[in-house]
C-alpha cells in the first residue's frame, strides 16, 4: 500500500469513525427511533431533532445596555441567522433576571412568552428583583 492510499484511507476512516462514534453516543444517551429525542452531540447531525424551549423576553420599561435601549431579547442581536438563544426556559429566566442590572427605572416588569416542544405556549410575568 502506498503512502497516498494509506493517507486517503486514514482520512476517510477518521471522518467515518468520528461520525459513527457520535451516533453511538446518541444511542448511549437514550435516543431510540420513535422514542426519546436525541441530545446535542458533535458530528451526529442532530440539527432540529432535539427538545428545545424558545422564549420571547421583554423588559418594561426598556433596559439601557451600553447606551442602547433594549426592550426585547432580540434588540441587541441580528434579525437573520445569528440569534442568541437558550435551550430551555429556565436559562432564559436566569439571563432575564441578571439583565435587570441594566434597568433604567423601578419597577421593571419582565414578560416571557415561552414555546416548548410539548406544544405549549405560556406567558409569564415578574418584576425585576429590588
Amino acid at each position, binding site marked *: 500500500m*502506498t*503512502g*497516498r*492510499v494509506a*493517507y*486517503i484511507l486514514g*482520512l*476517510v476512516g477518521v*471522518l467515518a469513525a468520528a*461520525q459513527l462514534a457520535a*451516533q453511538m453516543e*446518541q444511542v448511549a444517551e437514550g*435516543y*431510540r*427511533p*420513535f*422514542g*426519546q*429525542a*436525541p441530545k446535542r452531540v*458533535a*458530528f*451526529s*447531525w*442532530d*440539527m*432540529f*431533532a*432535539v*427538545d*428545545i424551549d*424558545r*422564549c*420571547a423576553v421583554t423588559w418594561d420599561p426598556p433596559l439601557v*445596555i*451600553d447606551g442602547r435601549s433594549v426592550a*426585547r*431579547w*432580540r434588540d*441587541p*442581536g*441580528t434579525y*437573520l*441567522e*445569528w*440569534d*442568541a*438563544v*437558550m435551550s430551555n426556559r429556565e436559562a432564559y429566566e436566569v*439571563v432575564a433576571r*441578571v*439583565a435587570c442590572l*441594566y434597568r433604567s427605572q423601578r419597577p421593571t416588569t419582565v414578560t416571557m*412568552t415561552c*414555546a*416548548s*416542544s*410539548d*406544544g405549549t*405556549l405560556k406567558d409569564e410575568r415578574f418584576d425585576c428583583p429590588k
Partner: protein
Amino acid sequence: MTALSKLLDAEDESDSVRRARRYFAGLWLAYDVVDLVVSGTDHASAWLPHARIPSIAVAQVVLILCGVQLVRDRQPYLFGVLAVAARLVEAYAFHLNDFYYYAVVMLLLCHGDGTPLDKPRDPKHPLWVRWALLVELGWIYVATGVLKLNVTWLSGGHLFTRTQYLIHGLDWPYPQWLANALAERSVLGAMSWMAALAEISLGVCLWARRPYWLVVTLAVAIHTFAALVTNVWFFSAAMIGLVVILVPRRH
C-alpha cells in the same frame, strides 16, 4: 484492492470539486465577514454584555483570510486545512452543528486537487473526493432524518417551538393563514413527517448519485422550508449549492 486502486486513481473529468470548493468558501467567507462585523457568534454565545471572546475573534480572522485564498483558488489544501482547524476552534468555543459541518465538508473539499502525498502520475482532480463528498452529504441527510424520527419531532413539537418563537420573538412576517396553520399540531406533525422522510430520501439518492432532478428538487424544497421555519440561511444555501454542483447530471 484492484477496485480500490481503480477508484483512487480515477480522474474527475469535470472540475466540480473545485467549483464546489470556491462556492462553499465564498458563501462561508460572506458568513464570517458578517459574523465578525455584527459579532453574531460572539453575541449568540452569551446574550449579556461581555468582552469579545478572543478565541472566536481570532478564529474568524483566520477563517476570513483562508476564505479569501480559497475563493481565489490559491493553495486549497493548505488554506483548507487551516480553515478546518480555525472552524473547530470556533466550534469548541460555541457548539454549533454548522461549524462541524463546515469542518467535515472542507476537509474533503480541500483534497480536490489531490493529497500532499500525490506524485506526478496521480490524478490531478481525483474522482474519489467527489464521491466521498456525496457519501458524506448523503450521510448527513440520512443521519439527521433518522434522528428526527423521535416523539418530539414527529408530533410537530419542535416546529411548533421554532415557528412560535419566530412569530412572537422576531415578528416573523408570516401571512395570517400560515401563522394559523403553524399553530395547529396536526399540520406541524404532517410537515415534520414529510421533512424527515424527505431528508432520508435525499440522503439515499445522494448515495445513488441519481436522479439529478429529484436530488435538486428535494434539496431546494427541504432547505427552503428549513430557512423559512428555522431561520437558517447559510447552511441551506451551502447544501443546495453543493448538491447542484456535485451530483452528476447524467449517467
